């Protein structure tokens, strides 16, 4: 008698079809369950690299490993330290968002943020001197990503700035980000007015030590657990962090209140956090970075481990292609503008915050956030469509981060460049919008598309690596 392994037996099989409709129609007339994929040929020149990576014997396992590492990473905030110490920055060295670039290539908001950072560091007396110093090439620029850090929008981090320290015990890895300043006229959006610099100084002298003290009292703060809850409370973790910030304050309040500071100073901290619905963003971003970093450097993997914009270019990094950036010209986001601004005021796409989409939330978890569906055209159904589409280009569903309105399906996680190129579906990205002119600040929030060329270049690079192995 033969062993009966039911799973392997084909009985009334369901057929999926790609290609000539004639064949699947013939099955349909026989009453067979057949579903057509809506296949279309991928663009000229992509068929060969697609078939090369697809038949690379390393890829399936490499991608499974990469996405598993991303999902199982457990990033926690352990405290607040300073950038100079933690990231090895000298006073005239600055980190910025996105792939590498020079001052000449930098857009308005990044230039504005660098001017502000020079003022904060006390390297110059006034904005004019700061501008001149930059023009004369007296400053050094590095991408945040090159120092295990991420920064929203301009992403400028300077030596004296406080930074969150995020530790992933699973992978023994540490990442960093600066502290969120709030909305409107802020350094990350390119503002450098006195008010901006004053706020940054207060963050250094008061907010940072109080938070650090509170974190030490509380113990490591599990960011993934916070996201799991905030996604079930209407956040998508990128453009909406209202629930997450509230949850953070709730959990930390007792620990903040016990810090050895005057009541009025403690109250200021509460007030500041309460006034900033993106307060948690600068903790979830480095947490997402830690998770993405866990998936790096797996030969043969076509999974994206970073997407970042510097205001001029959009760049991605892919697990199987090391630290190499694959870049294309940054598109200009579209969305909802603050009163008094027009489309002409919007700077091209900027910021490291696309690490959230890299991690499978933000635009990918749009279905979680009905409160902000105006960004995607106004209906909850469109938000669901966006999220559903993202399952087409991702490798797995994150069991820790669930979408309540989709019957608790896990968020679409691990962007596969091969799937992006073959389906021509681009990652859905939610973003803030900075003013084009240095000093303007935030002008709105909305959506942006990455350039397809980044994904095509990355695909070719991984395909080539298959022959070099």
């Amino acid at each position, binding site marked *: *008698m*033969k*062993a*009966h*392994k039911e799973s*392997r*037996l*084909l009985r*009334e*099989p*369901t*057929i*999926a*079809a*790609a*290609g*000539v409709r004639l*064949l*699947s129609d*013939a*099955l349909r007339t*026989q009453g*067979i*369950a057949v*579903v057509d*994929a*809506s*296949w279309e*040929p*991928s663009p000229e020149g992509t*068929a*060969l690299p*697609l*078939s090369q990576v*697809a*038949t*690379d*014997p390393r*890829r*399936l396992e490499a991608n499974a490993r990469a996405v598993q590492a991303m999902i199982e990473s*457990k990033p926690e905030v352990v405290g607040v330290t300073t950038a100079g110490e933690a990231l090895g920055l000298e006073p005239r060295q600055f980190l910025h968002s996105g792939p590498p670039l020079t001052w000449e290539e930098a857009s308005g908001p990044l230039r504005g943020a660098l001017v502000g950072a020079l003022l904060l560091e006390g390297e110059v007396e006034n904005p004019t001197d700061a501008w001149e110093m930059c023009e004369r090439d007296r400053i050094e620029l590095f991408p945040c990503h090159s120092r295990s850090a991420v920064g929203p929008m301009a992403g400028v981090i300077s030596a004296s700035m406080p930074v969150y320290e995020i530790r992933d015990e699973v992978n023994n890895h540490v990442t960093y980000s600066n502290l969120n300043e709030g909305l409107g006229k802020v350094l990350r959006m390119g503002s450098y007015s006195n008010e901006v610099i004053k706020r940054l100084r207060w963050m250094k002298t008061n907010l940072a030590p109080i938070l650090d003290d509170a974190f030490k009292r509380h*113990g490591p703060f*599990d960011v*993934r*657990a916070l996201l*799991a*809850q905030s996604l079930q409370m209407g956040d998508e973790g990128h453009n909406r962090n209202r629930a997450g910030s509230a949850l953070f304050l709730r959990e930390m309040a007792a620990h903040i209140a016990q810090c050895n500071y005057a009541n009025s100073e403690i109250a200021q901290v509460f007030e500041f956090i309460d006034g900033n619905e993106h307060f948690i963003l600068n903790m979830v971003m480095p947490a997402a970075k830690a998770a993405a970093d866990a998936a790096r450097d797996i030969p043969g993997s076509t999974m994206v481990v970073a997407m970042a914009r510097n205001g001029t270019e959009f760049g991605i990094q892919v697990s199987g292609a090391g630290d190499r950036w694959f870049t294309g010209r940054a598109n200009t986001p579209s969305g909802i503008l603050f009163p008094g601004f027009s489309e002409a005021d919007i700077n091209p796409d900027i910021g490291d915050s696309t690490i959230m989409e890299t991690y499978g939330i933000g635009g990918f978890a749009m279905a979680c956030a009905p409160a902000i569906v105006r960004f995607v055209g106004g209906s909850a159904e469109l938000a669901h469509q966006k999220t559903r*589409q993202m*399952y*087409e280009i991702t490798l797995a*569903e994150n069991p*820790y981060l*669930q979408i309540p309105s989709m*019957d*608790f*399906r896990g968020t679409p996680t691990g962007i596969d460049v091969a*799937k992006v190129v*073959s*389906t021509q*579906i681009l990652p859905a990205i939610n973003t803030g919008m900075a003013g084009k002119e240095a000093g303007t600040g935030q002008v709105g929030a909305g959506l942006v598309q990455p350039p397809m060329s980044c994904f095509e270049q990355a695909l070719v690079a991984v395909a080539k690596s298959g022959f070099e192995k």
Partner: protein
Amino acid sequence: MLQTQGRIDVIQHVELREGLYRDSVMLMLLSKVLSEDSKIYQPIVAMATTLNVELAQSAGYEIPDGSNTDLLIAFRTDEDSPHRCLQLVENLLNESGGRVEPREGTNRTATSLGRTIKDYRAEVALISVPGEHAAYQAAEAIEAGAHPLIFSDNVSIESELNLKKLAEPLGLIVMGPDCGTVILDGVGLGFANVTAVGPIGLVSASGTGAQQVLALCDQAAIGVRHVLGLGGRDLTDDIGGISARTALSFLDEDPTIEVIGLIAKQLGPVTEKSLERVISNMTTPVVRIPTEDLTSGTAGLLTAARSELPELPVWKPTRERQKRTGRLVGLFSGGTLALESKCIADAAGCEAEIVDLGADEYTIGRPHPMIDNTLRLERLDEVAKDKSIGAVLIDVVLGHGAAADPATELESVIRKIQAPVFVSLIGTRNDPQDRDKQATTLAQAGAEVFLSNARATQAAVIQ
């Protein structure tokens, strides 16, 4: 509480899952389902908040130190191990994730083949995209866990080998490339004949070869459950029969398959050895059906299935058959059938010119002769004028995917041919074209019609 119930063999399971968050409503429902299980006592599945930990402690559980972002799982059971209960918890915890109900019409969610396979839990992927795109689609199918059936041709041999290597350890069969005939659980995909489901399984490196075997099994009234196509190159030593191995063991595992037929074409010597090893470890008997004589091979298969090759019908023309006075010309749509006829003609020492009109050189920019007879009609017209030709042999393949009424298309040109015309009619009784009507039409036009290509050829080569 447990002691009062007199249960002494109760085991207790307590664990904290670090950082796994589930909403409290979902967890309450989960605990409720667990408590309805007659073997599970006092289940508590909740976030490890102070309140919930106290609750668990008051139920007598010892709870390790953790944080309120951990998930607490605690229960007692009188089963030997907590394994089944844990599996149940696992299923309930993940029940909600990753399920998409198939949607009809325009609301379809899936775009890519991989997503379609996962969303609809498809077991097989039918791929007919242009060759240069086929390898990627097949790899997507493999990644999503479906057997790829690659109808497309022009897939490089490197890609074929790599795909088959990807699929083998996963137990998936890459059918193809250039695989035209497959039957799965009685359902024909591509060019396949209508046949009853039965105890026979076929593994075939040849599409029309498989169709010939199907036609003969049908005549013997014995059913075929699966025909697993391999693509013409699988049994060469370049590929090494990777798909054949997986397909054979797949059929061996199916308890309803009593006999397996292996239709071998271009069998490489190294591959032959490796297949012999596979077959020697199988419980189901395997009968080799050489493409040099498919009919004799099928007779062996039928014997192994405790049946026999029946008397095969021949549809005689009204006019008397003339003696062959010149060379034999064969114009085929099926490559394997052409090859079989050539072997038989050569063995009989008959001068024969056998052409496979389905070969790549004839199909560039035009449909395959199994679908469209235009080219063959042109060639037959020339044949009718050529008085040096002593006999004409053609195949007419029926079934799903084939031309709707080939006999009517061929009828008038056959009438014009002076030399005797022999037809191999490859079809089953229930094929959509109505096999017997096709045979009658052809016979009335003057052809002698056989159900076996070997028999037709044997008749044609006689002087």
